[in-house]
């Protein structure tokens, strides 16, 4: 009895170990199975923060002349550029001065701004053109999604306001 017990006690762990090993192999087989990739409705897109390619700040004259060209579709006169540069240097808060300059541009005759109907008719196209015009690049998927949402969520928003927002953004100040 005692002997049996002893032999059993020796044999039993060995059997158990074998069983565990088999189970491990089975489990390992399941675990090593290649994972399936599921795509739910949309394709993957690469989203990165813009800015790495625009490290430089526009000079005063660059900012004014580029903004003028973007809004009016023509070159600013030398006299106007000189006058605005002078005013720009006469106030310490450059952002404030840029804001004032842009708001005066937007209120002047001759601006080239699409109508609201044009914007709503094909918002994606409008946004792509606006990004290209002001920021010299096409919007990524996230930007397109986000800006489209802004336009669609607010019935009062106009192309002029989109332009105003873009012209006073940090990215517009850079190249």
């Amino acid at each position: 009895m005692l002997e049996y017990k002893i032999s059993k006690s020796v044999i039993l762990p060995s059997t158990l170990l074998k069983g565990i090993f088999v189970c491990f192999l089975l489990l390992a087989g399941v675990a090593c199975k290649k994972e399936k990739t599921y795509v739910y409705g949309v394709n993957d897109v690469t989203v990165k923060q813009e800015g790495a390619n625009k490290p430089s700040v526009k000079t005063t004259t660059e900012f004014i002349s580029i903004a003028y060209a973007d809004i009016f579709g023509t070159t600013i006169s030398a006299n106007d550029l000189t006058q605005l540069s002078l005013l720009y240097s006469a106030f310490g808060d450059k952002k404030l001065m840029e804001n004032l300059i842009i708001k005066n541009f937007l209120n002047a005759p001759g601006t080239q701004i699409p109508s609201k109907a044009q914007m709503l008719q094909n918002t994606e196209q409008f946004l792509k053109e606006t990004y290209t015009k002001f920021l010299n690049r096409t919007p990524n998927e996230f930007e397109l999604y986000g800006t489209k949402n802004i336009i669609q969520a607010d019935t009062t928003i106009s192309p002029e306001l989109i332009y105003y927002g873009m012209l006073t953004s940090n990215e517009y100040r850079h190249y």
Partner: protein
Amino acid sequence: MNTTRRGFIKRAGLATAGALTFPYILPSGRLFASTGIRKADHVVFCLFAGGVRNLETLQKAEGNLMTYTLPGTEAISSDILAGMDPLPAATGIPLQLQGSLFKDFRYKSGPTGHFNGHTTAITGVYTNTDLDIKTNPEHPTIFEYYRKHNSPSQTALNTWWVSNSLGPYPALNFSKDANYGAIYGGNHIQPASIISLGGYNALGNPKVFTNTQVTAAKSMRTFLDNNFANQTKAADAGVTNAESEAAQIEGFIQQSFNEAVAGLYNDPWNLGTAMNNDMYNIFFAEKIIQRFKPELLVVNMQDVDIAHSNFTQYCNNMRKADYALSHLWNTIQSTPGMANNTVLIVAPEHGRNLTHNSLVDSYGRYALDHTNDPTSREIFCLILGPTGKVKQNTVFTNPQGLGESIDIVPTIADVLGFYSDIPLSYRNKMGNPLTQAFI
């Protein structure tokens, strides 16, 4: 001291709760205090007025050209009298009697140039010959010291630099110092350019957006800014006002345009053709004082610099600067919140040479330059302020000089109560507060 962990936590908790619950509210309404005690809640510093000699100011070599500031009825030299524009006769108490006058003030070191003089007065540190006029000064300005060390910290709306010309002067509202810079800078404005016909034509007719439209445009801008990694750095944008304060400033500029268009700026002091650029600069500084009641405002005048070519007009413009200074003080004293709570400091950036140059004006007088001779370093400093705070009718004299240009910044810091909060490494570069002028 023996203590237990429980006891320590209890005491620390009570101390924290006390600090949060019972912040010290000063009588002036300020929450918490700087280390020092304020002598007044506002300081206006006037750089007077483009290089003047003590010979023509305090010593009255051509008669009393500053009847609003200096007591005395000495007649103006008869040979130049015809070159003086009519100004209202001075009435009331001369400014000198309302404060302390340092007669032997000195601009002791550095070139006697306008920008060097301004930089020294605004930074409290003498400049050297290598001063770069195209960039911001090397040492922090009084605006930065104020905004960084005053407690509670204040926005740029509370501190203004009103210059009467452009050139290098706009750069004096903040320095290149890595510990300070644009984020602590003051608002700079040069009114002569902005509030002008050209300024109005370019900036006077902005698109007016409703609040809803502003919010909509802001949502677009915020979205863009959040997706742009390379944010505008402080120095790129100059001094930045918070959105609500920028709107206040825009409103102020717009109102100024409207008033100018309505003809209110044509001859605001009823002086006829006598109104010059210095007077307009002071006039606009007064508008800022009335609108924003800033705690710190620096304004300059420079029209006496015509002395390089016309001595008689130098004297004439000195009279106008004197009138403008008196007008400024009257405005301060009639502005609620600033009246009897403002210290006005007046000092020229430098003097002029003892020896004249070769140019002669139509009255036969030789012109004056400023090229580092001892006379061009002799200036004065007048400190006006509330009775009980500033010594009235007091004159300080000392042949070796008492007080220097580099003492003005520490004096302003001392008046506003944050002088001892400025790190010693910076204080060591400056002069000392002119405590003699205060009670």
